């Protein structure tokens, strides 16, 4: 079935991921849950162990050698991540613990102070709970209103509706770059342009785009952009918030404590420079350094190559899944989507499917993928989702298809 040449040197890449060798009851793992979390290559794992074995120390203010080494590595990690997404410098890169916290940072530091009755936050029907719940709740607290750009039958944003929904009352447009359920690649530059025409900020949830395609914040003209380490070959416990320097400069702090201050008296405090103003307490030191290494690792493979590889796998999976006619795949056609397919088999509930696939060592996700309102729109409570990364192959998708066929038979 899967005879085409691969864009990536998969054998070489797979050698960096010992976890992919795992077997369950003699069957080798087929890991297709990459939109939830990607696996971590040896160079990143080794960066972590090297940190703890060689230069673990608290950063920023230590004069001793270990602290200097840790500080430099941690600060340079910001530069590296800045470079990875085309930001101007470390001032624009705040390390958080995940994408979710990055959204909350802006919602608290900016939204809670700036939003009020009459103000509108425009989201999309395909937002992840990370942005949807956050803006919904901050809007509730401030008296602002949330509006949702609807999706078309094909699972794309209805851009005409977007033009109407974004008005001079709009203060923030928060949009997912690549949908983690539909696989839709949204026209974020276009949305940013519309938002800016109305003097609104735009927040790009890039959790599913930065890991697998070239993303340039300047090209998008994003005011804010967020993503997570654990979805891009990095460790758990780190996320990134990109923000334009002048905007971050003007915002109030979010978390208070050590490192984020310049001067403290019993009466009041003064804030530190960017980005440290937003990194209170001992930061995610080892995780930041490891994330920078993940950027190196991905850049070595090449983000264009990764994008192409994922498109190929997505199209192949789409075509094979829909061949039988009893599978509904959500979102745009196979040749125009990010590297994932969420679907439902007519006769088998997604959870049952996932359990049955697990018996064949095929790991997919089943559920609402943190997009419950979108699932309501799609008219289903849950879906099964296979999502791909740099180490996946068409042969693995063949195994997925086989296992789906087993389920089909079992429930026939």
């Amino acid at each position, binding site marked *: 079935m899967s005879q085409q040449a691969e864009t990536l040197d998969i054998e070489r890449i797979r050698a960096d991921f010992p976890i992919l060798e795992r077997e369950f009851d003699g069957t080798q793992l087929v890991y297709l849950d990459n939109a939830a979390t990607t696996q971590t290559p040896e160079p990143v794992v080794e960066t972590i162990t090297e940190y703890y074995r060689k230069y673990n120390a608290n950063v920023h203010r230590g004069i001793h050698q270990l602290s200097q080494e840790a500080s430099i590595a941690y600060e340079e990690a910001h530069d590296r991540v800045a470079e990875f997404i085309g930001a101007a410098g470390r001032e624009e890169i705040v390390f958080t613990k995940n994408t979710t916290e990055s959204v909350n940072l802006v919602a608290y530091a900016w939204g809670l102070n700036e939003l009020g009755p009459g103000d509108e936050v425009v989201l999309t029907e395909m937002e992840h709970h990370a942005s949807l719940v956050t803006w919904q709740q901050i809007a509730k607290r401030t008296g602002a209103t949330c509006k949702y750009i609807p999706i078309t039958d094909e699972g794309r944003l209805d851009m005409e509706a977007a033009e109407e929904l974004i008005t001079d009352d709009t203060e923030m447009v928060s949009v997912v770059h690549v949908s983690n359920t539909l696989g839709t690649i949204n026209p974020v530059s276009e949305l940013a342009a519309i938002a800016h025409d109305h003097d609104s900020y735009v927040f790009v949830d890039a959790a599913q785009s930065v890991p697998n395609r070239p993303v340039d914040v300047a090209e998008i003209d994003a005011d804010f952009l967020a993503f997570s380490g654990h979805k891009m070959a990095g460790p758990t416990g780190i996320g990134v918030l990109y923000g334009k320097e002048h905007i971050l400069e003007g915002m109030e702090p979010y978390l208070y404590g050590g490192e984020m201050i310049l001067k403290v008296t019993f009466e009041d405090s003064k804030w530190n420079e960017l980005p440290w103003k937003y990194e209170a307490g001992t930061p995610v030191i080892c995780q930041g350094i490891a994330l920078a290494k993940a950027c190196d690792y991905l850049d070595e493979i090449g983000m264009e190559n990764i994008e192409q590889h994922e498109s190929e796998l997505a199209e192949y999976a789409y075509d094979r899944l829909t061949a039988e006619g009893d599978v509904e795949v959500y979102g745009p056609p196979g040749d125009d989507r990010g590297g994932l397919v969420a679907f439902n088999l007519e006769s088998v509930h997604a959870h049952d499917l996932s359990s049955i696939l697990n018996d064949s060592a095929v790991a997919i996700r089943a559920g609402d993928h943190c997009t419950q309102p979108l699932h309501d729109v799609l008219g289903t409570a849950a879906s099964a989702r296979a999502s791909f990364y740099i180490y996946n192959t068409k042969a693995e998708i063949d195994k997925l298809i086989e296992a789906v066929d*087993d389920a089909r038979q079992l429930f026939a």
Partner: protein
Amino acid sequence: MGLGADMYRQQILDHYKNPRNYGELEDADIEHVGENPMCGDTIKMFVKLADDGVTIEYVSFVGDGCAISQASASMLSKELQGRSLESVEAMDRDDIVEMLGVELSPMRIKCAVLAEKVVQDAIAIHNGEIEIDETTTE
């Protein structure tokens, strides 16, 4: 490669495909609905009591969701006929796992126990012990 044989023994598939006691009960003494929002499983249970008011005469259910949740509701509806409310309140997840007769992974136990939880909450509401509109499980 297994065919999901362990978790989907014939009995479970049979109850899923041909649910017993399925349907609304017009003259139910107790009825209550519950859902597992993360899975999308929903179950509504209807209980008819015997004249003594503490014994279950008949149970029916309607619902939607995965095979485990629906088969569990179907099997439970049979299991409960003739039992005292008290004994039902004392049931726990082990009873359900035993009833299903399969090994369940921790993530699927939530599906399996939904029906039991709905019935127990229904009884608690009937007894005036709690006041909720709907059971929601994690």
